[in-house]
């Protein structure tokens, strides 16, 4: 029978030289590789579930043994690009993006001026266009000041 007591407290946190040395991440490159591998495995597993595949069904779709799927999902597997392309196709996901980034076409240019009044307040149309002849440059502060 469960009984409540007043001695219930969170377990203590322990540290030691052995643990501190172990948990110190010494090779950042290797850590990031491991993180990417595990994140990739997580993405594949989530995509499998989204498609309604269990391991056996996905293994059949990929024409491999279920143990191979287990290995793929473990976060320790080094995939070939060919396997990743096959997975992308079966799970309708994008893992590798090999296209050049789109070039952006400039279709308009705008010049936006932010102006303040001589009292240091934001001019009411400070977010719009301000004709240059209304501005006088304060030579000392080099700030643009709206002429009243």
């Amino acid at each position: 029978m469960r009984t409540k007591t007043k001695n219930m407290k969170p377990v203590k946190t322990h540290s030691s030289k052995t643990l501190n040395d172990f948990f110190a991440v010494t090779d950042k490159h290797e850590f990031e590789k491991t993180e990417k591998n595990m994140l990739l495995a997580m993405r594949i597993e989530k995509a499998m579930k989204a498609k309604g595949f269990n391991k056996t069904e996905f293994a059949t779709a990929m024409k491999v043994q279920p143990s191979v799927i287990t290995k793929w999902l473990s976060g320790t597997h080094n995939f070939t690009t060919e396997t990743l392309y096959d997975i992308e196709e079966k799970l309708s996901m994008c893992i590798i993006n090999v296209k050049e980034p789109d070039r952006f076409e400039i279709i308009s240019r705008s010049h936006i001026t932010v102006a303040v009044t001589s009292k240091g307040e934001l001019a009411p149309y400070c977010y719009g266009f301000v004709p240059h002849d209304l501005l006088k440059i304060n030579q000392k502060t080099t700030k643009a000041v709206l002429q009243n």
Partner: protein
Amino acid sequence: MQFEIIKILSGEFTNFYTIRFDGEDHNLFEKFIIENKSKFPNELSDINNRIQVMAKTTGAREQYFKLNEGKPGDGVCALYDQPDKHLRLYCVRYGSVAVILGNGGEKPPGMIKLQESPKLTKENELLRKISKAIDKAQKDGLVEWSKDGMEISVDGTFIDL
């Protein structure tokens, strides 16, 4: 024989714990590190990386563990290492938010059955007993999990094995 549960790593997604027996200086995970650090430093480094990723980024997802290393439902599983999977670390997994790290050891090449390694058999059986003891303590109201499953509270310090 009694043991205490101690937290050794807190993360946004997973907290990691281990076990220390009353009267012993080192906890189970410290023993694993000490026993394997000279022969398998790369494997230990990989295990550290995987633990850190689970704590900080992904959670202790089931897919990262070799499951069913104990009795059905006791949560005992094993964490692999890379590059060559020389080590096996036994754990008790409580969902993806809390893991108790035990001990383990070298996995002999070509090993198919656990019983082929006396060391791994010993560590595996110990963790099964620990998992069972924690379950019993929870049923007796001596161990509680927080609502999110990440934090463990205990009545007193030690739990009977």
